[in-house]
């Protein structure tokens, strides 16, 4: 089935006086893992923030699950079943790990109300989350914070996961765990949109790929196709997968 | 030039007072009284010898530096001949040298600090308002009996300390057993009252806590709640105040003290005129500072009549020194030495009358100027 859970068409975004996105067209197929690649400053983060309504698109349309969300306020977009992990991880440093998780679990009033099975699964993926359960999140190591950020996004079932560079700062062992986790989530029908620099990640997980440059999507297609075409990789990314 | 002509035909009076700021309420009463007084004293013509009285109002906001520049601007830019005001003592003290610089009269009303007619005085300064000593001495006269022990409760700044000192100096028979100074901003009086109780409770004879307090949160409710009379036989005494502040007096029936003015006390035509006029305009009786403003106006008009409308200091000063004039408080006289108006004060006793929201002071005795030895503190 090739219907798209999320589509952006002709999205322009301005930040202050700067014109950052110049008509982004992007389709995220349902149940697949989409990779968003591109140089530093290409506009990947800006695209994700625009989807979440954290920046406002000045032109164009964003449609999620058949609903136009271009002008919806952020909480409502999240309420439709979107989880977002920003580039800076968005950890509440003054709150404990537990409190961070409780907030992420919208249905739970306190820690004991979080789905225990799911929580155990998260603990098995990211042992640090369990180990530092009652510690202030601000004191975690860089990688531990990243784990917490991803844990928050998956603590409850969501239709779409949007993650800005999930593997940043993680040790290889943990990256493996994360790849497994995304695989399991995908199997459950979750759609995932990732910005990622890690090649292993991209190769092992990606179904579809979009490459951005200068605020527009310059290539979109199947991951396989890009992985096999070295010439294309060079011209788009200047790298070999 | 037409301007010069019109000015020649005018007597320009600057009234500088707290239209805004912490003393806004007092300042406005003064202004009301002052205008009523001018109207009354000129028989409604607002002119003397054909020269119109023009009042220029200025707002010192209770700030001394501002008052100072306003007075200079009034004398120089607005060509005021004389000035009246201000509300606060601090502002008045800053203004005094300006009058001297411009060689024009400043009639102080109602600022009370002794030093205005004391060591900071200069010959351009007159005052119709009572000074701290007059306040304190009259209050002392009201309670000064044999076998009386007094503990003072005062605000810890110049006004409070001066008041206590003058009070002490005026006492002949009664004994001061304790002085309690509390910060001006005190709201919780428990500690102070405990100290007062400790100082007074075992004293023989009559025991009185004499309060010198102006503005802020007055201690009367706290004193009343402590049930001092019942528990220790301790009475409370204090001076007069503006009417809203006297609601607290309701809880002290029989309390004695001395006041500068209460509209029901003095019996004279000026007071009757002022009270009826005030009721007509505002549906309420005139208050403490209204009487002051009225008196200042009467002093000024009396003096100007004496000089045939000449408002220069050279003419006004000799005319005003020793001059007597009528006021709502009866006759006042500018004493020659320090230009302080000598005046009656009223020894009262509080009665509770449900018709009034405040405790009503009933006259016990009018303390005539002759009965008070108000010290002269200035150097001529």
């Amino acid at each position, binding site marked *: 089935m090739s219907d798209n859970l999320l589509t952006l068409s002709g999205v322009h975004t301005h930040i202050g006086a700067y014109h950052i996105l110049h008509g982004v067209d992007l389709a995220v197929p349902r149940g697949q893992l989409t990779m968003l690649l591109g140089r530093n400053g290409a506009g990947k983060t800006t695209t994700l923030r625009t989807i979440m309504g954290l920046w406002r698109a000045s032109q164009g349309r964003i449609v999620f699950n058949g609903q136009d969300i271009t002008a919806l306020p952020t909480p409502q977009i999240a309420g439709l079943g979107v989880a977002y992990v920003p580039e800076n991880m968005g950890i509440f440093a003054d709150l404990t790990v537990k409190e961070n998780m*409780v907030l*992420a679990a919208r249905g739970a009033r306190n820690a004991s109300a979080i789905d225990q099975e799911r929580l155990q699964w998260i603990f098995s993926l990211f042992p640090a989350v369990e180990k530092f359960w009652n510690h202030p999140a601000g004191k975690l190591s860089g990688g531990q914070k990243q784990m917490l950020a991803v844990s928050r996004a998956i603590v409850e079932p969501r239709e779409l996961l949007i993650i800005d560079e999930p593997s940043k700062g993680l040790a290889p062992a943990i990256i493996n765990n994360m790849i497994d986790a995304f695989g399991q989530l995908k199997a459950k029908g979750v759609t995932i949109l990732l910005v990622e620099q890690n090649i292993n990640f991209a190769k092992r997980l990606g179904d579809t790929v979009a490459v951005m440059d200068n605020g527009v999507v310059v290539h979109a297609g199947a991951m396989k196709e890009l992985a096999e075409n070295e010439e294309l990789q060079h011209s788009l990314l200047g790298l070999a997968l | 030039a037409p301007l010069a002509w019109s000015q020649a035909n005018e007597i320009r009076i600057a009234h500088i007072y707290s239209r805004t700021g912490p003393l806004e309420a007092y300042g406005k009463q003064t202004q009301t009284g002052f205008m009523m007084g001018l109207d009354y004293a000129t028989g409604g013509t607002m002119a003397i010898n054909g020269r119109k009285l023009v009042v220029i109002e200025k707002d010192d906001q209770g700030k001394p530096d501002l008052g100072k520049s306003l007075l200079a601007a009034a004398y120089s830019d607005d060509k005021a001949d004389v000035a009246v005001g201000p509300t606060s003592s601090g502002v008045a003290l800053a203004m005094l040298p300006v009058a001297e610089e411009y060689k024009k009269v400043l009639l102080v009303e109602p600022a009370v600090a002794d030093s205005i007619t004391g060591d900071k005085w200069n010959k351009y300064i007159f005052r119709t308002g009572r000074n701290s000593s007059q306040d304190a001495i009259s209050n002392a006269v009201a309670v000064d009996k044999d076998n009386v022990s007094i503990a003072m409760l005062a605000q810890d700044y110049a006004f409070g300390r001066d008041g206590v000192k003058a009070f002490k100096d005026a006492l002949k028979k009664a004994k001061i057993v304790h002085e309690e100074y509390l910060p001006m901003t005190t709201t919780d009086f428990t500690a102070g009252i405990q100290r007062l109780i400790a100082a007074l409770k075992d004293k023989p004879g009559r025991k009185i806590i004499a309060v010198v307090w102006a503005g802020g949160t007055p201690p009367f409710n706290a004193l009343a709640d402590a049930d001092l009379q019942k528990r220790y036989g301790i009475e409370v005494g204090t001076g007069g105040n503006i009417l*809203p502040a006297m*609601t*607290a007096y309701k809880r002290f029936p029989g309390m004695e003290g001395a006041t500068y003015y209460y509209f029901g006390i003095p019996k004279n035509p000026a007071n009757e005129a002022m009270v009826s006029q005030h009721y007509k305009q505002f549906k309420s009786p005139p208050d403490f500072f209204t009487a002051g403003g009225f008196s200042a106006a009467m002093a000024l008009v009396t003096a100007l009549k004496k000089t045939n409308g000449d408002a220069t200091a050279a003419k006004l000063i000799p005319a005003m020194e020793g001059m007597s004039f009528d006021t709502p408080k009866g006759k006042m006289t500018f004493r020659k030495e320090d230009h302080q108006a000598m005046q009656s004060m009223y020894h009262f006793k509080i009665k509770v009358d449900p018709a009034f929201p405040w405790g009503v002071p009933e006259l016990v005795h009018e303390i005539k100027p002759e009965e008070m030895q108000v010290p002269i503190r200035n150097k001529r």
Partner: protein
Amino acid sequence: MSFKEMDWQPLALVPVLALLVLPFVGSPSTWLTLTVAGLAMGMIIFIIASGLTLVFGLMDVLNFGHGVFIALGAFVATSVLGAMGDYTGSESLWRNLLAVLPAMVVAMLVAGAIGLAFERFIVRPVYGNHLKQILITMGGMIIGEELIKVIWGPLQIPLPLPEGMRGSLYLGDAAVEKYRLIAVVVGIVVFGVLLWTLTRTKIGLLIRAGVQDREMVESLGYRIRVLFVGVFVVGSALAGLGGVMWGLYQQNVIPQMGAQVNVLIFIVLIIGGLGSTTGALVGALLVGLMANYTGFLVPKAALFSNILLMMAILLWRPQGVYALSK
């Protein structure tokens, strides 16, 4: 927080301080009077500061305009109580309460409503920027104070305590004003409700998270704006309640009364540690006690007792007695 995890040291500070000064005061009855009055005063201070524990402590909004809601509450009370002379004049405490309770409710409603507008027009543009908060809320404060003067006049207005609440009760030789006991009851209720809401619901967490990273909280799907508005309104309403209590305590109200208590309540919050309700209570009680003890023992120092207390506490715990994490 479980009973065991609770940090008891700051709470112990209150009785320790009280016992320490006993020998200096000497007379036990005086000591009792001072202590009970000080604690009760602390409770009143807590009530007026409670709104700010939400607004400043939790939302991190340096609201210098908080005092205006205190004044507003007090002025509304003068109007309400003034219209209910029958009830306030009665000797019966119950009839008095029938007058005071509506006054409280109306004051809270009015203060809350104004708080809504205040949040919308004054505070909303400056979340997260302390400096601008100081300025703009200061402006709000001045405007509010002047509007009070326009409506009620610039004069001091008496707010007499209802008959039945006046006077004192006696514990042996020590006297305690009745009104202070009422304040203690109100204070305990406010404290209980606040503590319950903040620890037993997610609201406290959400606000703290929202202050750190608003966007993230929104990305998690919470409508933080609505929550902030709500909390601000509740904070303002509590200030209104505090105003009624404070006005009745002083028995007269002036438009500047809010500005006068501003510094005091900030001190209480700093001593308590931002965001902690229990801390605010401890801070208020300490301030109340210290004022009475120094006022009795070294009156000269009473003026500076709050500041000295604050400095001492900050030297002990630079974040206040109960700092949230960190």
